[in-house]
């Protein structure tokens, strides 16, 4: 299993269904209410698409002209259903990326527009997130239905954009393929290089994005990149208390808890207790915790410490030890024995989702 929706990387077995479903619920509502629906509302206000366009596109929708085609679940047991929900959610998030401002010029929308539209500065505009209650089975049925509904709106929106001539089916198909290309996770590649190449590490810490230029990883364009180094004296942690800023355009998506209010509130009130309780990380008394709150035009990530017992390992092997959590400061890079054991159990290394805009 991919481990994408769990805050612990490299889980060999999907033993905690409740945690997986919680992660899907949280992420699904986040992407719907914070990323996708504000975008539709923004375009409706400006007449780029209208409610009528959406209704007409729904009526015209047939199996044969559907843009998104989902595979069937691989079985009826709970594990197969959870897996299916996770894959479906990934497709939904990629679908949102497909209709981003970069793909569809008519949108002319920047992140700040999205923040206003979704009520970051004014409760009046907040889109209510759905809450889920009941047994695990009831929650799963609810999430299945929600995903179906939300996916349908996404489908209809894509059809309406094509219908209005804002994009063509071919353009979107090409981009859809790109979004599914597998490539090594930039986070692992960058950190492994910094661990093995002191000149690169120095450049990364002092120039940020500039240092990535010759590495063949996607540099991203959002804000100034600052990389902060964990040492024996300093443990850095990243947060965005205002929304969920993060160098998505380089590193992909964050785990769901990064966007959750409980993390965003607690980490600046009592960081030591927060990372102990949420991630089981006991930062030593001799280490200062520095919480970086990315409130404006700087995007941060942590350069974790290189684990012991890794002398002589290649960059490729080292990259496997780097987790999404360790780049936020919510975890350490993996011990090689821990990683090896997880791999034997069938865990794949963590590769986060693409950024949806």
């Amino acid at each position, binding site marked *: 299993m991919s481990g994408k929706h769990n805050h612990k990387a490299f889980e060999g077995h999907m033993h905690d269904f409740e945690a997986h479903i919680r992660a899907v619920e949280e992420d699904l509502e986040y992407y719907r209410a914070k990323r996708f629906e504000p975008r539709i509302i923004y375009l409706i206000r400006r007449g780029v698409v209208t409610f009528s366009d959406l209704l007409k596109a729904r009526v015209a929708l047939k199996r044969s002209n559907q843009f998104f085609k989902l595979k069937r679940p691989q079985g009826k047991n709970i594990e197969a259903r959870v897996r299916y929900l996770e894959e479906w959610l990934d497709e939904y998030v990629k679908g949102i990326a497909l209709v981003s401002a970069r793909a569809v010029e008519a949108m002319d929308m920047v*992140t700040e527009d999205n923040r206003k539209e979704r009520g970051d500065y004014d409760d009046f505009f907040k889109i209510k997130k759905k809450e889920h209650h009941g047994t695990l089975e009831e929650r799963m049925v609810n999430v299945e239905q929600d995903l179906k509904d939300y996916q349908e709106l996404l489908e209809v929106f894509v059809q309406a954009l094509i219908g209005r001539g804002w994009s063509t089916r071919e353009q979107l198909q090409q981009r859809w393929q790109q979004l599914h290309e597998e490539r090594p996770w930039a986070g692992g590649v960058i950190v492994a290089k910094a661990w093995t190449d002191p000149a690169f590490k120095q450049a990364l810490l002092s120039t940020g994005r500039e240092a990535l230029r010759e590495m063949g990883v996607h540099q991203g364009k959002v804000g100034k990149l600052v990389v902060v180094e964990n040492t024996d004296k300093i443990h850095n942690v990243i947060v965005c208390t205002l929304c969920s800023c993060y160098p998505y355009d380089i590193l992909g998506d964050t785990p769901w808890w990064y966007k959750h209010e409980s993390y965003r509130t607690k980490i600046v009130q009592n960081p030591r207790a927060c990372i102990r309780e949420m991630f089981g990380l006991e930062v030593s008394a001799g280490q200062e915790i*520095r919480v970086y709150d990315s409130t*404006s*035009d700087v995007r941060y990530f942590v350069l974790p410490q290189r684990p012991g017992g890794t002398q002589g390992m290649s960059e490729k092997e080292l990259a496997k030890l780097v987790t999404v959590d360790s780049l936020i400061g919510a975890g350490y890079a993996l011990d090689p024995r821990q990683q090896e054991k997880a791999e034997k159990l069938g865990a794949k290394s963590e590769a986060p989702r693409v950024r949806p805009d």
Partner: protein
Amino acid sequence: MESATSKYRIGDAVLVAAENPTGNPRTPRYIRGKRGVISAVHGLLENVRDHRAIHKPLYTVRFDLSEVSSCDDQDSVWVDVHEEWLSSLPPEERNY
């Protein structure tokens, strides 16, 4: 660009305004009215994917954890704040 356009220098003690001075809302509430020290000078930053206007020069301001919360661990919170939110703090009012 940074030195030509930015008013504060690394090490300067600053006070964050308690009320929003301009309408740029991206200064979190928990640091408003709090004392910190300039720890990085970013200057004028273009961020066209994020917003259209160029904001005032940006700084990373370091706050003692105990200044911004009721926790007195010896930890710190580093927040990016634009210049119009900041004023100089005379040495006698510094908290370190």
